[in-house]
């Protein structure tokens, strides 16, 4: 029996059109868009403020509306619950809440509406305030030592109302060795955090993983030892919802990598263009931060550099604490002096792979130097960067699973325009295979992070 007739695609189209057509689309969230754009621009170009980049970064905020069709009473901490209720002992103290709103009102750009959460958690007083930012809602965190008066609360991160409100609060005088990750989400969830990404000698990624506790219904907390490069947070809700993203806050940064420190590490021997100026230390530090890796591990190297008119492509080998390697392909724009005297430097991660411990000059990677453009975009660029063992003389590139092309290499490295490349084998002088690697999918989000590969 054929259970469904042949017009299934038509039924799919009607079903989808019905649902998407009935969707009540909110106005363009210009405030949120501009905030994201500003943050990314800062991350890419703002070395004047790069010391805070590791805790600012990009945000994967989830908009409201996830629970709109649920019939049951919303669990504490969920967005629907927070529409009508507040969480925490202090949020239900009218005098303190009023004072907190007055405090939030001192920040001229937001109009405070209501305290969503406020309480003392392990020596820290935290408050989450719903505000208006133009025509949009914005939830802002404030913090202080436990027992702080509202007027002394310090503003932390602001974000659009999210399914998961979270913040990273710095160490307190009572506990200077730990930071606190706080989240407000639907009660009954499981909170997990990852810090200190690492790669073992076998090339496998590992991290410090810890589970938070629900300190009161809908409120989650966890302590993590400082310093750490980045915190990734995950909440699995009873409803099946699964949220994952970084936690941000204004915590003190670990020591930053200076140019002198980095260049001393990078060592000579990089392959590629003759003028092999390595990326500045701060840009490399930002790369470590984005990958959630400690930057104080010796052994990092610049394996290859290619200077272009618009960007410099670099391949970095960063040694992880447990001895494995993280190969990071980056492209970066030339440094420029900003009006305030700071140096601006843009850098993007194009690809990240991990490799087992060993001689970095024997590692192999292939990546798209500039990702192929979508239809309607700029001219597609399909240049493939290939860096393998230093004694490799050619690369055999498999294309679309059907044919192979051979590319000459210099010192085991090369660039070629090879659309649809899938696999690269590095060959020695007598044709023997020295190493091989797959080519990542273009435009794959996972290419640029370690956390997504854990």
């Amino acid at each position, binding site marked *: 029996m054929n*259970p469904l007739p042949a017009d299934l695609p038509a039924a799919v189209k009607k079903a989808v059109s*019905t649902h998407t057509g009935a969707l009540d689309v909110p106005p*363009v969230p210009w405030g949120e868009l501009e905030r994201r754009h500003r943050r990314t621009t800062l991350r890419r170009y703002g070395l004047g403020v790069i010391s805070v980049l590791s805790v600012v970064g990009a945000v994967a905020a989830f908009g409201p509306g996830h629970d709109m069709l649920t019939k049951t009473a919303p669990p504490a901490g969920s967005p629907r619950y927070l529409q009508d209720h507040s969480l925490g002992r202090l949020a239900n103290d009218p005098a303190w809440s009023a004072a907190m709103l007055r405090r939030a009102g001192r920040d001229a750009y937001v109009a405070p509406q209501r305290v969503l959460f406020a309480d003392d958690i392990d020596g820290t007083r935290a408050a989450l305030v719903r505000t208006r930012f133009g025509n949009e809602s914005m939830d802002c965190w404030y913090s202080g030592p436990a027992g702080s008066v509202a007027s002394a609360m310090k503003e932390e991160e602001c974000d659009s109302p999210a399914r998961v409100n979270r913040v990273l609060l710095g160490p307190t005088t009572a506990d200077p060795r730990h930071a606190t990750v706080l989240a407000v989400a639907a009660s009954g969830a499981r909170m997990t955090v990852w810090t200190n990404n690492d790669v073992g000698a076998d090339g496998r990624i590992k991290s410090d993983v810890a589970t938070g506790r629900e300190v009161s219904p809908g409120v989650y907390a966890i302590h993590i030892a400082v310093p750490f490069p980045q915190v990734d947070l995950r909440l699995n809700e009873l409803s099946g919802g699964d949220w994952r993203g970084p936690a941000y806050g204004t915590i003190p940064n670990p020591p930053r990598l200076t140019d002198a420190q980095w260049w001393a590490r990078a060592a000579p021997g990089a392959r590629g263009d003759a003028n092999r100026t390595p990326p500045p230390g701060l840009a490399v530090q930002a790369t470590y931060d984005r990958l959630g890796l400690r930057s104080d591990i010796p052994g990092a190297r610049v394996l290859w550099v290619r200077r272009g008119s618009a960007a410099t492509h670099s391949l970095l080998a960063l040694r992880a604490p447990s001895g494995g390697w993280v190969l990071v392909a980056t492209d970066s724009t030339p440094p420029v002096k900003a009006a305030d005297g700071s140096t601006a430097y843009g850098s993007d991660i194009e690809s990240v792979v991990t490799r087992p411990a060993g001689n970095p000059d024997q590692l192999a990677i292939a990546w798209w130097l500039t990702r192929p453009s*979508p239809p*309607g975009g700029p001219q597609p660029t399909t240049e493939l960067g290939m860096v393998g063992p230093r004694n490799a003389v050619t690369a055999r590139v498999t294309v679309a699973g059907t044919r192979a092309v051979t590319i000459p290499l210099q010192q085991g490295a090369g660039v070629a325009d090879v659309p649809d490349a899938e696999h690269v084998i590095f060959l020695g002088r007598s044709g023997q295979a020295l190493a091989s690697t797959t080519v990542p999918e273009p435009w794959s989000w996972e290419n640029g992070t370690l956390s997504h590969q854990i």
Partner: protein
Amino acid sequence: MTGPPDFRAFVDARWPALVRFAYALTADRGDAEDVVQQALERCWRRWRHVRVDGAEAYVRTTIARLVISRWRVRHVVETPLEGADRAGSAGPEETVVLHDALWRELADLPPRMRAVVMLRFVEDLSEAQTAALLGCSVGSVKSQASRGLARLRTRPELMSLADPLSHGGGGEQS
């Protein structure tokens, strides 16, 4: 080559359509708005490179590729409220029930398979266009579309609701 359209004007004009497009791909309103914002932010940075006649395709491509490469797309099963407004659902009750069931089953398809089904059968893109948009081969589109429809055909909830479909028109595209 014509210059890029004003980014703000483009977003103001196309935001609802882009959110609906992303909603079809994600089956989750919150995720849809989030991924459109991500896509627009990325495109904003590169806007000066966008051709005026290619802006929408550029943004939609970015949305689709973000959707299929997201870390993990939440699959939310929506529970319609009793008596909820179904103004957009014309037709007999059985068809409404079928559409709701189809929507839920589509939401359960893996992200890449769901994207292929949506682009092929909802957006009416050709296999080549779908492949170009998702950055994969035509063969992959063929296989994902075929497997997606096959999965829908074998879902128990849809099998039990098969009758209303027998009155519909149209045929499967190859």
